[in-house]
């Protein structure tokens, strides 16, 4: 199973208490923000704080992402230098519009990696698409670099660019969400959904998580620890789904042993995509700790 990225919790980069405690809540990834969450006058302070936190605090297996400032302002380059030196897992680019945005940041990352002797390519990247042109270029962005692990939607800027606003049903985001999932799947990287800003509206949040799961997203950005558990619950397979998938995997395994081309389970024909989905679900169940035995060992 590849890495779980069901939740990516945003943490303001200039808040020492939050940087210290962020990993206690169980998010799959943490995103330390040097961009929108930090005032212009405090960009340097946040950069030093994140740099030292990354070098000192043990975040265990939690993936650490840092959202840097764009390269078209004075802060972006210094952000990259600091976080690559500190050993960050993933650098997130804000407001990505073309593949050239990715390539420009990649060039700076590589320069720093070479300078400090860090393995070239070991700093991963992810792109946040926050405009109409970014959505149109989603596939070219998603395939622009081997470092890219995912592509995310940043909805607030996107809806402003689209001359609309966010509505409860999320219809205004449907096109962008679909485009991003399709681009991510075609490129073989993760698709990550935008934040849900109203932390007090859990009903609306849960509805949105169910929708993005249905669309195919791997996970969602969250802004409050209380949003983590519902996402993980929605992304966890049910006992019934696990049982059904295990039955399919076993039937497939048995058919292979017997050299059978067509597989049947409880009178229903099972074909390749169904087996693939079942295997993925079992792997997910193992990854989230709901099933212990590795299905590969059963084959």
């Amino acid at each position, binding site marked *: 199973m590849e890495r779980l990225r069901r939740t990516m919790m945003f943490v303001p980069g200039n808040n020492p208490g939050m940087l210290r405690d962020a990993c206690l809540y169980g998010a799959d990834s943490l995103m330390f923000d040097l961009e929108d969450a930090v005032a212009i006058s405090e960009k340097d*302070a946040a950069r030093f704080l994140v740099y*030292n*936190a990354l070098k000192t605090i043990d975040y265990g297996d939690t993936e650490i992402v840092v959202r840097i400032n764009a390269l078209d302002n004075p802060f972006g380059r210094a952000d990259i230098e600091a976080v690559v030196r500190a050993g960050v897992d993933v650098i997130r680019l804000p407001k990505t519009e073309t593949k050239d945005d990715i390539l420009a940041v990649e060039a700076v990352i590589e320069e720093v990696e070479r300078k400090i002797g860090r393995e070239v390519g070991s700093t991963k990247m992810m792109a946040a698409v926050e405009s109409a042109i970014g959505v149109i270029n989603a596939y070219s962005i998603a395939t622009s670099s081997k470092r890219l692990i995912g592509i995310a939607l940043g909805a607030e800027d996107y809806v402003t660019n689209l001359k609309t606003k966010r509505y409860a049903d999320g219809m205004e985001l449907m096109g962008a969400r679909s485009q991003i999932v399709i681009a991510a799947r075609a490129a073989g990287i993760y698709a990550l959904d935008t934040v849900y800003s109203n932390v007090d509206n859990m009903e609306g949040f849960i509805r949105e998580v169910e929708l993005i799961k249905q669309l195919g997203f791997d996970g969602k950005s969250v802004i409050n620890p209380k949003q983590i558990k519902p996402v993980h619950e929605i992304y966890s397979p049910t006992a019934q789904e696990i049982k059904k998938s295990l039955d399919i995997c076993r039937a497939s395994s048995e058919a292979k042993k017997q050299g059978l081309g067509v597989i049947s389970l409880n009178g229903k024909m099972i074909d390749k995509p169904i087996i693939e989905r079942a295997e993925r679900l079992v792997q997910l169940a193992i990854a989230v700790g709901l099933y212990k035995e590795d299905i590969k060992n059963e084959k």
Partner: protein
Amino acid sequence: MKIIKEAIAGTLESSDIQIMLVSNKNAGIEIQLKSSVEKQFGKQIRKVITEVLKKMEIENVKLVAVDKGALDCTIKARVQCAVCRACGIKEQYDWEVIE
């Protein structure tokens, strides 16, 4: 590195530390610390501050620190930031000195 102006970094929020510093001409490093945990951690806080100053080649400075329970990594970050601000360094850091 040379201090050319007064500088401040950090906040008075919980888990943070506020560092104010100014050049001390040729009078060495002078640290004035205010912390609710001074009795238990005062020595360690002063040690971390002094180490960062020495690493950044600051030899004459008057520094006022108001600690609100900051971790060592936060203390380091705030001192590094205050020193860079005091030396008028923006973005073009010499990482070899800082690290």
